[in-house]
């Protein structure tokens, strides 16, 4: 059962991710990214992370991606132009990526081959309650700091965007 869902959503996620990269038009990319995020939310759920799965859908797929799409619309961004370029990126990019990926997979399969299998319901510590307890006790300070961070981000974004009006 798990294997089925895993494979299904993994393939969807991968396909969407590839689509993000391959699509010429940013709108298509953005929509594909939403697909990735939703698939990942399902996978989170399977891993027992209920709260995070919800947050993933609401924050990411909902808020952040909407922002992206707004900007794309606002700028009326078309297909990308092929001007300029980096020789480094073109020559070394693909080999470096392959090496990176291979090394990563090698490490994972070498050092974590025998990790426990994931069964739905194995781990139930990822509910809103548990996370809330943690956030407001041991992680209180970072949590508050994130609020400040967001405030700063808001101010920063406004300041930056305001320039357009001048």
């Amino acid at each position: 059962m798990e294997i089925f869902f895993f494979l299904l959503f993994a393939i969807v996620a991968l396909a969407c991710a590839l689509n993000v990269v391959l699509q010429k038009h940013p709108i298509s990319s953005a929509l594909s990214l939403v697909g990735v995020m939703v698939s990942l939310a399902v996978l989170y759920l399977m891993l027992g992370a209920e709260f995070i799965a919800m947050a993933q859908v609401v924050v990411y797929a909902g808020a952040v991606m909407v922002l992206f799409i707004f900007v794309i619309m606002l700028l009326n961004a078309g297909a990308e132009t092929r001007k300029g370029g980096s020789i480094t990126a073109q020559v070394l990019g693909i080999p470096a990526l392959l090496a990176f990926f291979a090394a990563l997979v090698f490490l994972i399969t070498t050092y974590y081959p025998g990790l426990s299998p994931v069964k739905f319901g194995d781990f139930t510590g990822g509910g809103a309650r548990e996370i809330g307890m943690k956030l407001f006790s041991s992680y209180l300070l970072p949590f508050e700091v994130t609020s400040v961070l967001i405030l700063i981000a808001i101010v920063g974004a406004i300041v930056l965007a305001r320039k357009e009006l001048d």
Partner: protein
Amino acid sequence: MQNLWIIPALPLLGFLVNGIFGRKMPKLMVSLTAVLSVVLSFAYVLFVLSSAKSLDQPAVEHYFTWIQSGAFNVGFDYQVDKLTAIMLLVVTGIGSLIHIYSTGYMAHEEGYWRFFAYLNLFMFFMLNLVLAANYLLVFVGWEGVGLCSYLLIGFYFTKKSATDAGNKAFIVNRIGDFGVALAMFLIFITFKSLDFHKVFALAPGKPVATLTAIALLLLVGAAGKSAQLPLYVWLPDAMEGPTPVSALIHAATMVTAGVYLCARSSVIFVHSPAAMDTVAMVGLATAVFAAVIGLAQNDIKKVFAYSTVSQLGYMFLGVGVGAFSAGVWHLVTHAFFKALLFLGAGSVIHACHGEQDMRQMGGLRKYAPVTFATLGCASLAIAGFPFTSGFYSKDAILVAAHAHAPWMFWVAVFTAGMTAFYVWRAYFMTFFGKYRGHGHPHESPVSMTGPLVILAALSLAGGFLFNVPEILGKMFQVEAEGAEAATLTYISVAFGLAGIGLAYFLYVVNSALPDKIASSLGGLYTLVYNKFFVDELYDVTVVQPTVNGSRTLLWRGIEHYVIDGVVRGVGANALNIGGVLKHLQSGNIRSYATWVVIGGAVLLILMGVGGFAFAGGVR
């Protein structure tokens, strides 16, 4: 305690007063300060000498420690013994006369106060030199008089030739000081002290090679200060200074410091026959060489300058053949008659309104009778006319030279003849014949003629009044035993008279002849007239290569291209490396990202290779 420090302190005080306040003081005050400080010093010298019980054993007076470092300990110590006493009398006595003379001679000069300040400073250093009880303190005076010489030669500082001469004097003297300094290092290493009494007590037991080295190094210093070959070149140029300076510093006192130093270090010299021979040879060579040059000079001061060099050569000859007291005797008598010659020359120049070329003089005996008479006394003395002062001292040296090596006697006596000739040549050219210059020559004021008369008396009678060898007695351990050979005396007197006679014949009787002789000699005359081109030789072989080599090779070449070139090369290469690396910093985000990925890949591969050690796997 005899409070010897008062002797140099008085001129020092005079220097400070004149140096600091002199500009604002009236001339009378300046000259009073300057003259009084030296005269009082002279008086105090007389007082000290009369009150001293015995001068055989010097009593060292210690004032304070000057330099103390480990075993090296040098104090401000003064002492008086017979040699010092004689030097003190000469320096303060002649110094006083010349100070008085200068008040007249310099009366109309700009920078009157400056002149006297320098002169007083000179007295301080010179007295310090002769009073010192250790080599380092001698060195203080030694360098100090060099400084004053520099300042006074360059007294007319707007004249390039004067400042050049000053620099030359200082630098050539520095070469001599180099020798003295090295001698002191060697003395300290050998004797563990620079105090005279310790050094001289220990000297007999030390190896001859060391003593010879010390003596030769001292000789280098003495040759610098006393204008001996090959370092004599500064003295003729030093005549750029005012004439009293030439008389005091470059005839009577400072230039004899070299002789004093050798006499003072006699204990070291006598233990080193090789050094003694070198001293004698240098002295003799200088005497001949300078006398030859003196034959053909037309500037009255230059003539006397070369004669000074030549006479100093005599003194060195005396010291070198072991007749220290004869050398010192000649030092004293020379101080009398040479100071007189210069002061007389000053008077002549004064009379001729600053003219120094003898060809523009003549017939001055009518206009300046006192100068004429006194200068005559000096000329007699330097020619070794019987019973004048020069006769005694020169005779003593010649006798000793004969005892040492007869050929030295013959060379020296021939030189004496030449000396008589060129001095009297100058005398005749100046005072006889018709006046060839411009303006009306006049006699000098009393302040100038007074000292001349006193010095004339000393030049005539100084020889038997101050029988230096008798006074010094057993001061020097080894004295050359010269047989009292009357024959030698006759020979030297004969040569002297012949020189005078020749001069009389050539410059009074038949005054057209010298030019004919000169033109018939041709190249030889040119050579002598131009002082054997020694200055030019030094310029081409030493000065120019040093300056040009430093400029072209060292500074523009090695400094700029090699040493700094390497430094700049390193800097430029660092820039080149940066130039390669800066392409990484393209500003292109994608290329940055690629580098990040590459870095990540490398890191991961390293993790794999390193067995993931740092992460430790899972728990």
